[in-house]
């Protein structure tokens, strides 16, 4: 047996770094803060890799399956003998895999940020919050207990808020951070209710019990029902809402594009690779429950994922902000992961969707992190987010160009890059389960290839030369992470994921099915070719197409007016019909009655304060006349 107790340090080191950088960062030289943060994270990364090595290669699988190991567990809050909240470290295939993903991306982003954020006034603060985020995210994935996961959800939400609002002098950044926080917080509220609902019936928060194959804890939930769905279905549905908020699933997706107001490394770390997959991770963590107890909810998840991926891919085509395109593509890819979970079965070959989802999570983290860091490098060079300001950059930034190209090929699903392998598994799983979702996914694969290539050709090709100052390749601090991630994005696809991360922990052989792979590759290639024809040099064909599409184009450009719909619902309906009457009631009835009491007392006091004149003789007069009256009264009464 291997002693995994040290894994608690994986979580604690970033916390310690946060405390050090948060308290003393402002007194340090900026570079020292950056190096310190990166060094702490480097230790964590080494520990995570060690853990993964021990877990997957050294430990003996029991009955051929990877078991979940509670490496560290401490009772935090005790409600009764049977119900308590634990904090600790739970190791199983998905959490170990997530540890590797998070620490890798976070380390890359840390190193990259030393270069990217150079000269920023909030440099130390930025690194402190990066550490805080890494701590929260690691704490989330190693949850032993659903409440710990909830705490993690809240904390990543908070650190995401802090990092999006890094440029807090900029009103749009403040608005974006508020929006992200409010939307995800709103979704977390659903998560909380779901936790309470499920735990009320099962009487436990412990993942080891909740996600056990033995379903006896759920029997009592079958009987309770509400609006035609059982309490368990409702509970799991509400838990999914929490995940959907963090993973920006339709219709809670509105915060993610705006979150791009944050610094680009933050977008790479939080809004592409790690935090936004927390929802996928949550569903994967509770997958057994979804699959056996709430299949209806799982079906729903599949459709939400499929719809989000299609919806976001369509919007991505028309956007001009390089980071927003990447944000919508993130939405689309997370939709893929969700739908893969939704169509997955349990155990062995049937669980290919589950495996594919985790696989795609892994590869997506690599190539999307790379895309964002590459975009950051471009933005750093030309100080603009807008595609229309870019062009011909392959001459100026060769390293960024090559790594970006790898990432684009990877996300488009071109073999042998990593995205191809995971996307193929997803499509295979969808094909087995639901043809409608399969066709939508294939369409999304084509759209993805198209809009990513559009971005790529617009930025790196074309004839644009009228730059204010010559763009130049970024420093080594920024390009080395790009190269490492490009390496990962190229070769991550060859990891035999099905031997490590499966729904029941047992390894199985997954084979590449050509009947799935060939159509998807063809459609991806045609997307790329189409984009190449339209965008590799400046032409007026795209403009003609947009004109001919008319309203459809405008709707897509405006993200199907979802922000406006939300604004309408909140401002016009909720504010006017609910909030304002309540505010009026509060101001006039509740405050009014309190003010009235104060007013009565004040006026009475003014009226009677003459009695306290301070004139001793007046007092004496009152006293004496009172005595005389009393004497006369009693004399009359008793005599």
């Amino acid at each position, binding site marked *: 047996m291997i002693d995994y107790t040290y894994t608690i340090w994986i979580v604690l080191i970033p916390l310690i770094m946060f405390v050090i950088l948060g308290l003393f960062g402002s007194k340090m030289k900026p570079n020292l803060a950056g190096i310190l943060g990166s060094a702490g994270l480097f230790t964590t990364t080494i520990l995570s890799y060690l853990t993964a090595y021990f877990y997957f290669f050294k430990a003996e699988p029991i009955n051929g399956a990877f078991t979940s190991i509670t490496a560290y567990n401490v009772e935090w809050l005790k409600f009764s003998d049977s119900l308590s909240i634990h904090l600790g470290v739970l190791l199983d295939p998905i959490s170990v895999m997530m540890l590797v993903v998070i620490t890798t991306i976070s380390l890359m982003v840390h190193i990259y940020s030393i270069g990217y954020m150079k000269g920023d006034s909030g440099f130390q603060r930025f690194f402190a919050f990066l550490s805080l985020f890494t701590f929260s995210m690691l704490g989330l994935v190693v949850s032993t207990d659903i409440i710990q996961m909830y705490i993690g959800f809240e904390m990543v939400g908070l650190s995401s808020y802090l990092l999006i609002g890094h440029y807090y002098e900029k009103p749009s950044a403040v608005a974006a951070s508020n929006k992200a926080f409010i939307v995800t917080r709103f979704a977390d509220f659903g998560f909380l209710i779901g936790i309470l609902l499920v735990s009320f019936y099962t009487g436990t928060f412990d993942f080891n019990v909740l996600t056990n194959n033995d379903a006896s804890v759920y029997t009592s939930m079958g009987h309770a029902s509400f609006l035609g769905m059982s309490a368990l279905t409702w509970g799991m549905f509400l838990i999914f809402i929490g995940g959907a908020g963090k993973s920006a699933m339709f219709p809670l997706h509105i915060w993610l594009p705006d979150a791009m107001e944050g610094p680009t490394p933050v977008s790479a770390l939080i809004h592409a690779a790690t935090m936004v997959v927390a929802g996928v991770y949550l569903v994967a963590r509770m997958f057994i429950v979804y699959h056996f107890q709430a299949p209806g909810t799982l079906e729903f998840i599949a459709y939400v994922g499929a719809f989000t991926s299609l919806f976001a891919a369509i919007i991505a085509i028309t956007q001009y902000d390089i980071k927003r395109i990447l944000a919508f593509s993130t939405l689309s890819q997370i939709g893929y992961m969700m739908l893969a979970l939704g169509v997955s079965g349990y155990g062995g070959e049937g669980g290919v969707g589950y495996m594919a989802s985790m696989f795609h999570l892994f590869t997506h983290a690599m190539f999307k992190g790379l895309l964002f860091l590459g975009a950051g490098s471009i933005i750093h060079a030309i100080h603009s987010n807008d595609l229309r300001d870019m062009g011909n950059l392959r001459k100026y930034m060769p390293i960024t160009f090559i790594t970006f190209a790898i990432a684009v090929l990877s996300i488009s699903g071109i073999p042998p890059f990593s995205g191809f392998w995971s996307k193929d598994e997803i499509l295979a799983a969808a094909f087995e389960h639901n043809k409608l979702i399969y066709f939508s996914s294939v369409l999304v694969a084509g759209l993805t290839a198209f809009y990513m290539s559009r971005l790529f050709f617009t930025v790196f090709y074309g004839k644009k030369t009228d730059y204010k100052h010559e763009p130049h390749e970024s420093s080594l601090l920024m390009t080395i992470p790009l190269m490492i991630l490009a390496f990962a994005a190229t070769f991550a696809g060859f990891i035999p994921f099905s031997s490590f991360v499966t729904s029941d922990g047992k390894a199985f052989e997954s084979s590449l099915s050509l009947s799935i792979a060939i159509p998807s590759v063809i459609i991806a290639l045609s997307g790329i070719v189409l984009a190449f024809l339209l965008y590799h040099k400046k032409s007026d064909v795209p403009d003609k197409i947009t004109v001919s599409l008319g309203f459809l184009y405008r709707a897509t450009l405006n993200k199907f007016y979802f922000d406006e719909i939300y604004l309408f619902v909140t401002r016009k309906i909720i504010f006017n019909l609910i909030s304002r009457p309540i505010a009026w009631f509060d101001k006039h009835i509740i405050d009014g009655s309190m003010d009235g009491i104060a007013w009565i007392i004040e006026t009475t006091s003014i009226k009677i*304060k003459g009695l*306290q*004149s*301070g*004139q*001793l*003789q007046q007092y*004496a*007069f009152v006293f*004496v006349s009172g005595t005389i009256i009393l004497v006369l009264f009693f004399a009359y009464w008793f005599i």
Partner: protein
Amino acid sequence: MIQDIPIQYFLIVSTIMFFVGICGFLIRHNLITILMSIELILNSVNINFLVFNKYLFPNQLQGNFFVLIVVAIAAAEASIAIALFINMYRMYNNIDVENISEMKY
């Protein structure tokens, strides 16, 4: 002798003194006059003590001793009051009770 005088006569004198004292206390503005009024009130009470002691319990002395205590206290009180008046006069240049309103409200 004193026994020939009816008790009511003493009581009438003391009552008149008492109300004269009360009136002076209420009406006068000068603090010294007010102090004198208080002395009048105290002395009217003293008369009552002596008279009742003499007429009701001729063999006992409690009434007399009470009178002595009252006189002693009145003397002490007068000395303190005069000291206060002198200080007030130094501050306000008069000792009119109406003007001393620093602590009002």
